[in-house]
């Protein structure tokens, strides 16, 4: 189960933690340089952050699997995989924020990027923890900078509103999560997730049943983590926040924060509580409950998105829906399950970050987020239209783009689970809902494409690209295509995650 050599001494531990440490220091460097340079350069902080992320990525490739500080730091394939996702998400979010740093947040560029990096550090710690306390702290380190980032346009009501909404609901959910965690601690006497799993199993065997307190913790944990995933019915903050927050932040929320939530979910439920998955553990089971929420997510996300006229709001609902698909993969407790989640996240990263980058670019140019204002763009800015269409089509799940591969993998996992166990038949329904709603989703994604392509008029706008956003768009397109056409390395990597979880 632990294929990795344990890290024995502090030096090795620190070496294993090098990417995180480096990134944290780099964040400080970025902030400092920005302050020291009197915030003269529009782009310096941004490029510095991107470079820092690149270096982190390089460092990451040298880091080893293993654990340190007890179980507080536990570098396993899942951590490594998701760290890549976090770093890439941060990279692309930063790349798409050059527009706003140029005009809107002139005085706090360094802090803006620094906070994104802090949040990334939090995510990385989160993904590398196998212990409830560090998990929680990682989660908070992820979220708290995001509260600030959401409200970063200090004189725009929308941004402030999104900030306060995100904050209140976030803190509320975090309290709920903690409450659930406290009961788990009460049951198992440990915060180490693996020991918790063993303890609970042992107690379950000893006492025949360990009471309905697990029920409370399950529900509370789902609510707390569901908030991060924007999983209905814990999703309502998402559209508002995405709409109000700076677009790159919304992008980062929709990918990075979501991925962090997934990691937390996987760790809490698949690592600590897998025994309570099925209906035989009724009423303490969580499988069907999460399945229900996933179904809600797919339905509500896709259905409501159809009505949206604001593209950020539409993408928010779309990301709510995507969370549902991911959860379908999460619910498949087999060797494909987690791998599919990870892979989905990987493909989703490029498509969604790309889409948000396009939206950010357009918003910087025109100040509008209305879908209708995308009319006729394909003639004036073909590259923009093509790449945006590719992102959207990938989100729909059209082969050979990454989104399709991801959906395929997820549904394959679910069907493998459903066809293997009699009690898992309900997953078929989930798959059915997922597939049906993914057809619906076409409607609103295609609507944007329709605006860009089918109009007879030329758009009054012509996009201009700065190097950063161009990089982001190109990375997005290449990533989406690569994830669809040559996904093997990623899939193999993702497969290791399942292995390390014991599936």
């Amino acid at each position, binding site marked *: 189960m632990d294929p990795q050599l344990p890290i024995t001494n502090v030096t090795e531990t620190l070496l294993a933690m090098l990417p995180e440490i480096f990134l*944290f220091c780099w964040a400080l460097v970025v*902030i400092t340089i920005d302050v020291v340079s009197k915030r003269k350069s529009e782009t310096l902080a941004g490029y510095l952050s991107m470079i820092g992320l690149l270096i982190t990525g390089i460092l990451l490739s040298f880091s080893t699997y293993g654990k*340190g*500080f*007890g179980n*507080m*730091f536990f570098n396993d394939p899942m951590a490594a995989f998701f760290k890549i996702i976090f770093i890439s998400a941060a990279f692309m979010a930063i790349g798409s924020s050059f527009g706003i740093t140029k005009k809107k947040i002139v*005085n*706090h560029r360094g*802090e803006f990027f*620094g*906070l994104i990096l*802090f*949040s990334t*550090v*939090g995510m990385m*710690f989160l993904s590398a923890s196998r212990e409830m*306390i*560090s998990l929680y*702290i*990682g989660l*908070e*380190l992820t979220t*708290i*900078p995001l*509260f*600030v*980032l959401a*409200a*970063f346009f*200090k*004189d725009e009501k929308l941004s402030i509103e999104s900030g306060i909404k995100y904050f209140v609901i976030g803190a509320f959910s975090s309290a709920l999560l903690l409450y659930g965690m406290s009961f788990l601690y*009460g*049951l198992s006497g440990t915060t180490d997730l693996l020991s918790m799993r063993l303890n609970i199993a042992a*107690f379950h065997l*000893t*006492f025949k*049943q*360990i*009471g*309905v*307190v697990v*029920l*409370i913790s399950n529900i509370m944990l789902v609510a707390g983590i569901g908030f991060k995933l924007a999983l209905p019915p814990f999703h309502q903050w998402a559209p508002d926040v995405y709409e109000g927050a700076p677009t790159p932040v919304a992008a980062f929320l929709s990918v990075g924060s979501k991925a962090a939530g997934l990691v937390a979910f996987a760790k809490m439920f698949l690592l600590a509580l897998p025994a309570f998955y099925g209906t035989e553990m009724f009423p303490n089971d969580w499988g069907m409950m999460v399945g229900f929420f996933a179904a809600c997510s797919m339905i509500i996300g896709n259905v409501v998105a159809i009505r949206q006229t604001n593209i950020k709001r539409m993408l928010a609902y779309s990301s709510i829906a995507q969370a549902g698909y991911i959860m379908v993969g999460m619910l498949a407790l087999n060797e494909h399950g987690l791998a599919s989640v990870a892979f989905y996240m990987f493909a989703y990263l490029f498509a969604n970050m790309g889409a948000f980058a396009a939206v950010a670019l357009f918003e910087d140019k025109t100040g509008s987020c209305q879908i209708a204002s995308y009319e006729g763009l394909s003639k004036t800015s073909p590259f923009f239209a093509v790449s945006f269409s590719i992102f959207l089509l990938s989100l729909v799940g059209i082969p050979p783009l990454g989104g399709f591969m991801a959906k395929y993998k997820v549904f394959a996992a679910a069907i493998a689970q459903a066809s293997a166990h009699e009690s898992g038949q309900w997953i078929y329904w989930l798959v059915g809902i997922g597939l049906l709603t993914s057809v619906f989703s076409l409607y609103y994604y295609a609507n944007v494409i329709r605006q860009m392509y089918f109009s007879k008029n030329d758009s009054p706008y012509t996009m201009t690209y700065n190097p950063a956003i161009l990089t982001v768009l190109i990375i997005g397109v290449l990533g989406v295509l690569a994830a669809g056409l040559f996904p093997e390395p990623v899939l193999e990597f993702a497969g290791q995650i399942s292995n390390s979880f014991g599936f």
Partner: protein
Amino acid sequence: MDILLNELAGRPVFWIISMIMLVSAFMVVTLKNVFHCAIFLILTLFSVAGLFVMLNAEFLAAAQVLIYVGAISILMIFAIMLSSNFAKDKIRMTSKNAIVVSLPVMFFGLGVIALVVKTIVDIQPLWNRDPADLTALPADNTMMIGKYLMTEYMLPFEVVSVLLLSAMIGAIVLARKERS
């Protein structure tokens, strides 16, 4: 319920502290004047600290007092004073809202208690242990905590400091008035 009553019967101090805590918490969530709320919040936090002491968590109690009472509450009072003219600003809760909310909240609270009771009954030896069987908490738990913080919990400790740093930076960025 019997269990609850039995246990309560023998502990007047707990009874008093928790009552103070709950009543003042109730005040916090119902009073109109937000400044009064803050005062009651301090009282609540104090009583929580008291409970911590009863639970052999002296260091925690101290931290509670220091951090919450000493820092957060004061911060809040500052915020209140900064953000509102508290003499005039008496925001009322809408009654409809309160009623509708109180229903699920009551369900929630009673449900949790009921489930806990049920669990205690179900897993008798685990959760309702005879105090005699328990190894007592180390008396020098403050020292223990110190040790923990420097060994096992070193990493979260550091990460929390990063968290605090980032929160601080964030708060400064947000709170700072821009020169335009």
